[in-house]
């Protein structure tokens, strides 16, 4: 990775928060059933970026216990801004609506089938999604705890809007 691909050190604040959050999540990953969420930094999996329905490595939120989920959300929040975090959570929640609309005719829709992966020494976090066109992907790379690359990044959702029920008003808002 060349220097030109990296951000400046002005991102040290987020880098520190992200490194701390990743370390906390990483410790859980090493100690429990979430070992599958960790890879070496040079693992080919790090380049396995996609947004279509298919099997994906990493650990889904579905398999995390309540404490681990909180740490996973903290890791995500360390890199995303307020709008990004709201949008990410909204996209994830829309899977419930899509599941109801498609009634099994489409890919698997599950708000909890979003994956977390850590590559290397808790310096790379790659939340992605296992299946469905509804997808969200945010990648962050930390080098020496002070420099961040934040690509590739993709937020998307199949167009849908709920006009009834408890989800009334919810709508996809990908970008």
């Amino acid at each position, binding site marked *: 990775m060349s220097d030109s691909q990296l*951000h*400046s050190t*002005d*991102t*040290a*604040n*987020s880098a520190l*928060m992200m490194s701390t959050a990743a370390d906390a999540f990483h410790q859980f990953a090493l100690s429990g059933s979430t070992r599958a969420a960790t890879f070496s930094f040079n693992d080919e999996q790090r*380049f*396995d*970026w*996609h*947004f*279509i329905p298919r099997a994906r490595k990493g650990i889904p939120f579905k398999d995390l216990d309540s404490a681990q989920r909180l740490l996973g959300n903290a890791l995500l929040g*360390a*890199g*995303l*801004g307020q*709008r*990004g975090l709201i*949008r990410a959570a909204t996209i994830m929640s829309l899977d419930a609506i899509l599941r*109801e*609309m*498609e*009634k099994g*005719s489409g890919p698997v829709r599950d708000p909890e089938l979003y994956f977390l992966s850590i590559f290397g020494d808790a310096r790379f976090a790659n939340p992605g999604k296992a299946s469905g*066109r509804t997808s969200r992907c*945010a990648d962050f790379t930390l080098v020496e705890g002070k420099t*961040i690359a*934040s*690509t*590739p*990044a*993709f*937020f*998307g*959702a*199949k*167009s849908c*809007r*709920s*006009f*009834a*029920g408890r989800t009334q008003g919810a709508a*996809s808002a*990908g*970008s």
Partner: protein
Amino acid sequence: MLIKSLDDNSALRRSSTEKAPSDILSTNVRKAEALKPRDFKPSRLGQKQQDILMSLLNEYAARHAPDIAAARLDRVRAAGLGNMFFAWRAGSKRVSRITIASRVRRSLWSTTTFRTMQTTSTQSGEISLLISELTYWRFTTSKITGERSKRTARGARLSLFSFNFGVEIGQHASSWLPRSCYLRIRKRSETRSVES
């Protein structure tokens, strides 16, 4: 807003297409490369359009934490608009929404079957019809005892919907509709789902 602010003969508008591609142009290739064709350099835009474009980039960058977003935008500014390419691959019409209040027949067995519909015209000219609030299909029966009771069933028969321009049932609808259902109206000859 950016496309609309352009003259019809502007290079960017002429290079734009009305139809969005069916997938991300770069697909899932592992090594990122500059997209082709490199249609248009924003440095050729007027100041107003450049400001709108920067607002668009700000919106994109703002998904990340403020310091990360600022760093990304700093790189864009440092590179300069002369080293940036911009292309637009979709219609320039904003999605419009029309709310139609409608009541369908009353009969001995039915009350209002639905109250409002919303149509959304998409960039491809497709019209999506979403029945926003199907009231319950009510009918009253008299039991043998003579006691009147009300029954409620969700849904209404699709045959009630008799639009002059034709209705095509979406893949997720059936002859009996759930409370929130999705229909697609064939406006002309093409109907397809739009994803983003």
